[in-house]
């Protein structure tokens, strides 16, 4: 294998014996053909694989996502405190668990009687929405990744 199989090929093989070896870089220059640089190659392959992640990368993403979620949750009125834990799994595709504990400023007795549980449900929904928005913002190119996260919200 490795040699042309028709007449033109054998003619060229004869020429090859007679002529000087061709300088590859000069040839590339002559035809304006460029090599791909390492960064372009890596970028292309990352775009296919979704990027390879090592443990450090995973930790950085967890921390960044955690801080972003925390900051957003504090934007909700009557939140006294929050604890956010992000656990990523990047074994095959990125997925993860996000656990959130929220300290909520309780209303007065009357309001509680009027339906605090409804408020808590609304708050839980609001928090989940915020988390999903932050995930989508963080993985802009792969918004569908949001479905791979389990979001648990505990309100105290």
């Amino acid at each position, binding site marked *: 294998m490795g040699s042309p199989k028709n007449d*033109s090929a054998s003619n060229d093989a004869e020429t090859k014996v007679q002529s000087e070896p061709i300088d590859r870089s000069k040839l590339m220059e002559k035809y304006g053909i460029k090599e791909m640089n390492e960064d372009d190659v890596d970028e292309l392959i990352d775009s296919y694989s979704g990027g390879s992640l090592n443990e450090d990368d995973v930790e950085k993403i967890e921390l960044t996502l955690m801080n972003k979620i925390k900051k957003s949750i504090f934007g909700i009125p009557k939140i006294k405190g929050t604890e956010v834990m992000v656990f990523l799994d990047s074994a095959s595709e990125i997925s993860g668990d996000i656990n959130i504990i929220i300290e909520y400023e309780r209303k007065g007795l009357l309001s509680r009687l009027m339906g605090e549980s409804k408020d808590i449900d609304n708050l839980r929904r609001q928090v989940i929405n915020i988390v999903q928005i932050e995930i989508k913002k963080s993985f802009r190119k792969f918004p569908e990744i949001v479905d791979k996260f389990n979001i648990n919200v505990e309100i105290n």
Partner: protein
Amino acid sequence: MKRVIVVASGKGGVGKTTITANLGVALSTFGEETLVLDADVAMANLELILGMEGKSITLHDVLSGDASIEDAIYEGPGGLKVVPAGISLEGLRKIKLDRLEEALETILQDTDILLIDAPAGLEKDALASIAAAQEMILVTTPEVPSISDALKTKIIANKLGVDIIGVVINRELHDKTFLTIEEIETILEVPVLAVIPDDPEVSRASAFGEPIIVKNPKSPTSNAIMQLGADLIGEKYQPIEPDKKGVISKLVEGLLGRR
């Protein structure tokens, strides 16, 4: 040994699918259990070249869990088996990667050589096809844009750990405006496996939905592809000599009823 070979080009329209289909038939003719997987979704014309269009069950159905891989395998010319892809491999990779791997494993149980017809370009579908293979055959025409894209494809394949068997130069025209075989070999740094001449018979055969090596086995194109197939599996091939009788003598023979 089971082999998974991807046929890729970089640039579209260089004749990659035609080469894949005919090479598949050639390998099958040599007695190899060969299966061609059509991964070129955007230009899914492998079935057209093989005269097998409009199949209802595709690889997509298999990976969606709606059909078994056996149902997506169709018998083609010369005993070649064909699996139409039906959907982007990348789309499948994201959701059903396990099933894709399972499907390939199942295919390989009864297959000696799996040929993957990769999409042109270096989009995700193309990369998924390349990554699924162990070996690669590059297809290029002797023109600069085609060689430039083939070089990119080769670099990516190397990075993905795919072994490049060599390059097939398609539509060779003996024209000084094009690159020579030696120049192509030097730029791509891979051996030239075959040189396929520019042959209008190829388009004619495709129009009839028949691979050229079936429709016209004596043509230089058919001989070159058969030789390529033989080289791939270490077989010997004796080219079929074209009929050298002239048109007039054929006519006379026809009139005299000798044919």
